[in-house]
């Protein structure tokens, strides 16, 4: 845009180049304010990006840093270039789409192909370090040794005072303890010639090295090694596991069992016993296969899938027809107190669904609920504890929560159908039912069909209602995952991934992908079908 400035020096006989410059100047004249605004906005964007880059640099997040930089440069180029007109419109949406949709979806898909979950939480190195740490056993009846961390030419050693005889000895990771003449202070050896004693701050600075420090007690490895956790006191430990880095095996020193890396993400013995923690590995389609073949998962999965479809379809149908019925009533000119009724009908919609479900859960309590106690005079109806009653209750509450929305939508859609259609039907001698069935409903569906599909997708994943009302209960009695008769796929995924002591993010992600595929296919098919409806109008 800087070339607009050239237009100010217009000559008497303008060259073609100057003429085009003048044209641009004319076009841009009224928009200088806009240009300034654009530059200001981009400046803010760039400033934020620069700050983000700075923060990321401090945290050594190179991948994200590269992404932020690339996106910022791209955005600047798009809005300063004179060509990329479509991109100017599409960029914001695409960026949001990538961040909030595509990234999460890809990441979930990736998790679905791993064994990420309890016991497979980190990398192999972390698992090995953790196993080695937990395999340390303090030698029975061994005393507490006062220790001083000392250093020589970068190598750390421990100056150990034996509490039994007060003798000082010194050793390193390679050299077992040997007696030395040390400077004593209050019965503790604090310094020795040729070695520098570390202060507490220096010990803290070399925390990791101090943690790795294990000084053999004698030349016999079975005697164990002295380690210190706080740099002040040492204890004698032996290890029950030995890691062989070349063979990549763990050996249990007590039993002699050898555990090897079999590619399943944990050290496994020949008998199939696994040492946990393991680590995350790529397992291909294992999670999907397990979801479909493992009998204790398959049974509940099929039941839950069927119920999810029933729940979504019945919810959409019931709310739509109740909403439509009420909307038709309201069309009637002779009806009085319309406003009062309307407010009453919209009330459930104004109530947060969360609260609504919770209040209903309280009202449906078998012994103390309002419905049984007050309305039914002490009846013992198991609204939420019997499998079939619970399903019915869930549908009932969802109808209560959902019909006002459909009522509003149908009111609007009915306004759009001209009255002449109705009159023409009456002239031709059609019954009211025929008029509704053959004329009004098809015309209505043209407008409402996309909303019904959206409502189906929403109810398919209606986690809040299930979580708040029944918690998925009553539970299946013989499933290995804690799912119940009213669980939807989404709440089942939640239970697999985030409840109990055995999380299985991999399996839950696999379920999620299956759900995504189902919802996507249904949405695509339905939207195609609605195109056919549109030819009516």
């Amino acid at each position, binding site marked *: 845009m800087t070339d607009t400035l050239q237009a100010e020096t217009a000559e008497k006989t303008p060259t073609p180049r100057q003429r085009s410059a003048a044209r641009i100047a004319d076009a841009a004249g009224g928009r200088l304010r806009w240009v300034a605004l654009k530059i200001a906005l981009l400046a803010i964007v760039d400033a934020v990006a620069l700050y983000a880059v700075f923060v990321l640099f401090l945290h050594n997040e190179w991948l994200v840093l590269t*992404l932020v930089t690339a996106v910022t440069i791209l955005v600047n180029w798009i809005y300063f270039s004179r060509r990329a007109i479509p991109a100017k419109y599409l960029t*914001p949406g695409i960026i949001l789409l990538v961040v909030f949709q595509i990234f999460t979806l890809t990441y979930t898909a990736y998790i679905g192909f791993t064994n990420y979950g309890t016991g497979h939480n980190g990398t192999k190195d972390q698992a090995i370090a953790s196993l080695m740490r*937990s395999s340390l056993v303090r030698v029975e009846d061994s005393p507490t040794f006062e220790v001083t961390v000392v250093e020589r030419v970068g190598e750390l050693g421990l100056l150990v005072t034996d509490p039994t005889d007060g003798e000082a000895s010194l050793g390193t990771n390679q050299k077992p303890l040997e007696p030395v003449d040390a400077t004593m202070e209050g019965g503790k050896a604090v310094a020795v010639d040729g070695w520098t004693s570390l202060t507490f701050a220096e010990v803290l600075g070399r925390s990791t090295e101090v943690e790795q420090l294990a000084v053999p007690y004698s030349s016999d490895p079975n005697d164990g090694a002295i380690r210190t956790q706080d740099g002040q006191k040492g204890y004698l430990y032996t290890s029950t596991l030995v890691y062989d880095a070349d063979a990549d095996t763990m050996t249990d020193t007590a039993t002699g069992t050898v555990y090897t890396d079999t590619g399943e993400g944990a050290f496994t013995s020949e008998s199939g016993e696994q040492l946990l923690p393991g680590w995350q590995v790529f397992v291909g389609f294992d999670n999907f296969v397990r979801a479909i073949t493992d009998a204790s998962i398959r049974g509940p999965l099929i039941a839950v899938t069927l119920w999810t479809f029933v729940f979504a379809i019945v919810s959409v149908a019931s709310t739509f027809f109740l909403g439509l019925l009420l909307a038709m009533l309201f069309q009637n000119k002779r009806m009085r107190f319309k406003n009062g009724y309307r407010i009453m009908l919209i009330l459930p919609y104004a109530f947060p669904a969360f609260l609504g479900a919770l209040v209903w859960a309280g009202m449906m309590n078998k012994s103390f609920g309002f419905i049984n106690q007050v309305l039914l005079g002490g009846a013992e109806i198991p609204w939420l*504890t019997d499998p079939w009653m619970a399903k019915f209750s869930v549908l009932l509450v969802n109808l209560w929560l959902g019909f006002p929305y459909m009522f509003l939508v149908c009111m609007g859609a009915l306004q759009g159908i001209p009255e002449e259609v109705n009159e023409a039907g009456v002239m031709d001698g059609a019954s009211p039912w025929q008029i509704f069935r053959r004329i009004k409903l098809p015309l209505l569906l043209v407008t409402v069909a996309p909303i019904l599909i959206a409502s189906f997708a929403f109810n398919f994943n209606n986690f809040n209602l299930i979580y708040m009302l029944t918690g998925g209960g009553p539970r299946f009695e013989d499933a290995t995952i804690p799912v119940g008769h009213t669980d939807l796929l989404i709440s089942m995924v939640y239970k697999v991934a985030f409840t109990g*002591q055995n999380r299985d993010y991999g399996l839950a992600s696999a379920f999620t992908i299956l759900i995504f595929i189902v919802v996507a296919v249904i949405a695509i098919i339905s939207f195609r079908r609605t195109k056919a409806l549109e030819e009516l109008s």
Partner: protein
Amino acid sequence: MKVNKKSWLALGGVVAVTVGLAGCAGTASDPKATDSSSSTLTVWVDSERVDALKGAADAYTEKTGVKVDLVGKDVSKIKDDFIQQAPTGKGPDVVMGAHDWLGELSTNGVVAPIELGDSASGYLPVALQASTYDGTVYMLPYAVENIAILRNADIIAEPATSFDDMISKGQAAGLATPFVVEQGTEGNPYHLYPFQTAFGAPVFGTDAEGNYDPTDLQMGDPGGFEFANWLGAQGAAGNFNTDIDGDIAKTKFLSGEAAFWLTGPWNVSAATDAGINVAIDPIPSPTSAPAQPFAGVKGFFVSSESDNKVAANDFLVNYIGTEDVQLDLFKAGNVLPALTAAADTAASDPIIAGFQAVGADAVPMPAIPAMGSVWQYWGIAEAAIINGADPTTTWQKLVDDVSAAIK
């Protein structure tokens, strides 16, 4: 070009992306250890206890020069966040939690052992046992929690001597529901456990060192079936009701409809605030054996990925393990301290003393992963028995299901 609404959107989008991406990276975590940050300890604490630890943290900084950065976390998210963040090296150095997390934390390899050394003998035995997993101590305990009977002393003047005595005392006072305990449609085995132990059927047996042995499931002993039959009878009599959840139990006790409430220290303040004259009693046993509840022990873990383990261990063992700090934490949470000396000081309060008396019989809640399989079937089975299912077959099915799941 024209600048209009879409530019604003673009701006919003770009800002959201950059801030979002920066936020992903720059969560409140310790940067990788460099020389400057190596003397900062990041400690994740339950938000309600940050203030209690402030003094201890400042004093520690003064003494050693190590900065202690207390991060308040939502108690319901702290464990999952820790497990997920530890492997990335960005988690905390120290995290506050409960002992029954131990199985999960250790299976995920995110906690490092803690050597208590000679200070071990200064802790309550139950706290020490709960902090130990597979023979190794992973947690520095600071509080012990267990349930007991809250009695409305204005209605019932004397403690009940047995379970039946409690019910009859309450009925004599004209109460329809003398005794309430939190259940729910899926049961609540934690609150029923004292009655189960009274029949001599603990979940797991222990090995010589006092560790729970997952291969020794003792729920299927004859005592377990006696308990199941008793539970069925009490359910039929209406003394246990799965429709009573935590809120309903609380309401009944606060309104005076119930005189006995089996619950934990976390509900005491609700009762005293409502002006009820609360006394803490031992749990009345249905048998001649004592009713032993679960003890839950709270404490601190050291992250296995911490670059600062020396400071972390020093801070916990030589600092949080002192009587003054344990008493500070006690004042914040009103839960019995885990250090014996601090516990004795705290027990001058009759309510704390009441819980401590019950806690003397308490057994640590098993933290072994096999316990997850037990929880999964346990409550459902007990709820079914309360609601009239055949006790013997239901209990047998529970034992079979759990045994199968553990294998």
